[in-house]
């Protein structure tokens, strides 16, 4: 199908869908989840579709009309309360929009249903406050008070809270139908990930890679509110991969491998692709000799029963805290003239990867960040870092690029934050590129010898930090937006950004790419040239991805603003340091 006829089909489906928009939202079914393209006026899945494209067929707002885009209205939310180690909560969620109702959580897990049908104001219809024990949960949150979104299932909203609970909420009234404990803050576990709902299962995983957890992915049967299956990301004794923990002291039991961003899902094979976080402790690799699977990896997992089909480890023995939890877009494309089923990933370690999603074999990989010093490249056959030493239990990679016991601090590029962190890419299937919003720069890693956990004869208690060192940041970071060919990793267009990007990308059929920025600027870029074609500054930093939806045939762009005010950004950007954070929804239209 040509681009033109595709666009025509999308426009047609928009008209049909808009005309057929029901007065009361229909139940969210698996059939609808498989076909979000049939209702482009809505944003019904976390990543826009199961394939993780964050692409909308809406194009009323396009390269010609975007110059007329203006702020339509704002809605103030709560969620700024302090708790644990944090002075305030922040907003990182991707909104869900269904037939004129928007569902968003704040950092402490309150869920808001906002009626956005008027187009001139948003009316909060209900708010569900889960009563999170903020000190208890906030003291074991590594990196802010976060909640990345909710999901729809039948006539319910499925949400999570930082303190480890999952909720099924009546979509019409906000009443909690059931709740269950998935993750346990007593063990340093929290929940921040937007649930992936497949049929009647809600799939989430525990965060806590800096607190000595053993990571897992768990499916909840939404009909019963009970666990359906749990799969550990760090294999146990006798399971494949456990042999890559060579300490001989069962340190895999606190081996990290956390989950904090939503997987992509391939209905064809009933497989989801889950990015896995760093190994624990983060920086003391002498504590955990071996490759430490499946930390810093992607796992292909059967949605039905949680069985691991294959895994691919990006950074064996990761000494850099390169969590690879972020999205793994699913793309079908020709590679060297052959139709291939790809799963791709803009990794925190600075490389773009294309894998065969049927078996995890490496197809292509290329550096996408400006500076990458920890290795010299990727093996073209295996995708392993070129200076990975298969005969050593301790990976040096580039000498001096990470911390080691008793040695001077290491300096690594990209920083331990990436590369690209959780903030998602967007893929335009009509034009072809994957848009990668990135963090550019370098930082320092200092290793401190990690002590053992109390249950392994040491002194570390549950809920205590378990990082084996720390990072230092003295250099100013910047950002970039890169348009990358997802079959090769080739960068086709590149735009330098003043600030490292902590929002994520949205692509639309209007040939636009949208980003939010740390200084409060919302920008639209021409999808082909990456030239900025529109911007508006909301006066407070943005840490959440944008989405688009339509009501009554009119297209809107929405974003939550609630900056975590990260010291790694503000510490070297004095022009931002007196800005205040907020807890707001901003909506734009023509």
């Amino acid at each position: 199908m040509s681009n033109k006829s595709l666009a025509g089909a999308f426009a047609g489906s928009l008209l049909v869908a808009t005309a057929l928009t029901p007065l009361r939202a229909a139940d969210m079914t698996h059939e609808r989840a498989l076909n979000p393209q049939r209702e482009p006026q809505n944003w019904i899945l976390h990543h826009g579709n199961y394939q993780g494209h964050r692409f909308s067929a809406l194009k009323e707002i396009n390269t010609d009309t975007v110059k007329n885009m203006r702020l339509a209205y704002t809605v103030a939310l709560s969620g700024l309360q302090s708790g644990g180690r944090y002075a305030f909560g922040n907003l990182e969620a991707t909104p869900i929009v269904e037939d004129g109702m928007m569902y968003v959580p704040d950092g402490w897990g309150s869920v808001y249903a906002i009626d956005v049908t008027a187009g001139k104001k948003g009316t909060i219809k209900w708010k569900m406050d889960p009563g999170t024990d903020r000190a208890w949960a906030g003291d074991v949150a590594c990196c802010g008070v976060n909640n990345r979104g909710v999901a729809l299932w039948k006539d319910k909203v499925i949400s999570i809270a930082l303190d480890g609970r999952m909720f099924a909420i009546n979509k019409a009234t906000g009443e909690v139908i059931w709740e269950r404990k998935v993750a346990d803050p007593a063990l340093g576990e929290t929940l921040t990930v937007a649930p992936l709902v497949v049929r009647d299962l809600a799939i989430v995983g525990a965060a806590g890679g800096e607190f000595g957890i053993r990571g897992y992915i768990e499916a909840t049967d939404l009909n019963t509110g009970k666990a359906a299956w749990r799969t550990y990301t760090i294999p146990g004794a006798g399971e494949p991969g456990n042999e890559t923990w060579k300490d001989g002291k069962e340190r895999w039991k606190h081996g990290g491998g956390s989950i904090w961003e939503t997987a992509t899902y391939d209905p064809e094979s009933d497989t989801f692709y889950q990015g896995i976080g760093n190994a624990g402790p983060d920086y003391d690799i002498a504590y955990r000799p071996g490759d430490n699977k499946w930390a810093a990896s992607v796992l292909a997992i059967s949605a039905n029963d949680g069985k691991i089909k294959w895994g691919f480890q990006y950074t064996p023995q990761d000494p850099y805290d390169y969590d690879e939890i972020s999205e793994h877009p699913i793309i079908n494309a020709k590679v060297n003239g052959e139709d291939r089923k790809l799963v791709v990933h803009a990794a925190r370690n600075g490389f773009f990867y294309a894998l065969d999603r049927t078996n995890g074999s490496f197809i292509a990989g290329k550096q996408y960040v400006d500076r990458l010093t920890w290795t010299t490249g990727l093996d073209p056959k295996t995708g392993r870092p070129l200076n990975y030493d298969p005969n050593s239990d301790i990976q040096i990679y580039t000498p001096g690029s990470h911390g080691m016991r008793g040695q001077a601090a290491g300096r690594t590029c990209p920083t331990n934050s990436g590369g690209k962190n959780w903030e998602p890419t967007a893929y335009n299937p009509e034009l072809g590129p994957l848009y990668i919003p990135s963090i550019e720069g370098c930082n320092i890693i200092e290793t401190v010898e990690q002590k053992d956990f109390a249950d392994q004869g040491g002194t570390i208690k549950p809920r205590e930090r378990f990082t084996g060192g720390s990072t230092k940041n003295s250099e100013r970071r910047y950002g970039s937006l890169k348009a990358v060919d997802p079959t090769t990793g080739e960068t086709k267009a590149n735009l330098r950004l003043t600030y490292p990007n902590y929002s994520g990308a949205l692509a639309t059929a209007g040939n636009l790419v949208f980003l939010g920025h740390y200084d409060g600027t919302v920008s639209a870029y021409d999808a082909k040239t990456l030239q900025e074609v529109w911007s508006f500054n909301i006066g407070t930093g943005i840490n959440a991805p944008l989405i688009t939806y339509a009501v009554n045939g009119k297209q809107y762009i929405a974003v939550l603003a609630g900056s975590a005010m990260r010291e790694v950004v503000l510490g070297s950007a004095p022009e931002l340091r007196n800005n205040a954070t907020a807890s707001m929804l901003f909506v734009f239209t023509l």
Partner: protein
Amino acid sequence: MKMKAARENTLRYTFVALALLSVAALLSASGQAQAQAPLSAEEARFIEFGKEIFKSKAVCQFCHKWDASGDQGYGGNALSLRATKLTPEQMTEVVKCGRPATGMPYHDRFAYTDKRCYGYTREQMGDDMPPAGNDFLSAREVDAVVKYLFAKDVGHGPATYQDCIDFWGTDTRQCEPMKQ
């Protein structure tokens, strides 16, 4: 290169000297803790004000932990303030000026704009320049957080369940693990 090395040596000597000076300070601080007179209402209020600086405004607890026993991870390898050998005057200087070449931030808005901090300007500090705190503190706020630390943490042994309740209150599970 030579100048940088000389500066690093001077800095190092300054900190060694600070550390040595502080051994005596620790002993005297412990002595003071034992012979403390009851606090006046105003002193108690001021210490409570300092707690809020430590907990929320400057969020010192993010790196040093709620009980000031030190921690690692994002933010740096933060030292224990329970075991610190600094005097109140030295700690005041560290809060205002940060610790060069570490993650300990400075909280005086004008630090390193002149030579008020260890005799160095930002230019002279170069790569050793400490980061800025997320919020700057007034002299009164610095005074309060230092008084709070010396009243509750410095020279004290490991934190107790009661210390935890005093910090977090009773409306959270936060102190439960310390009950055992």
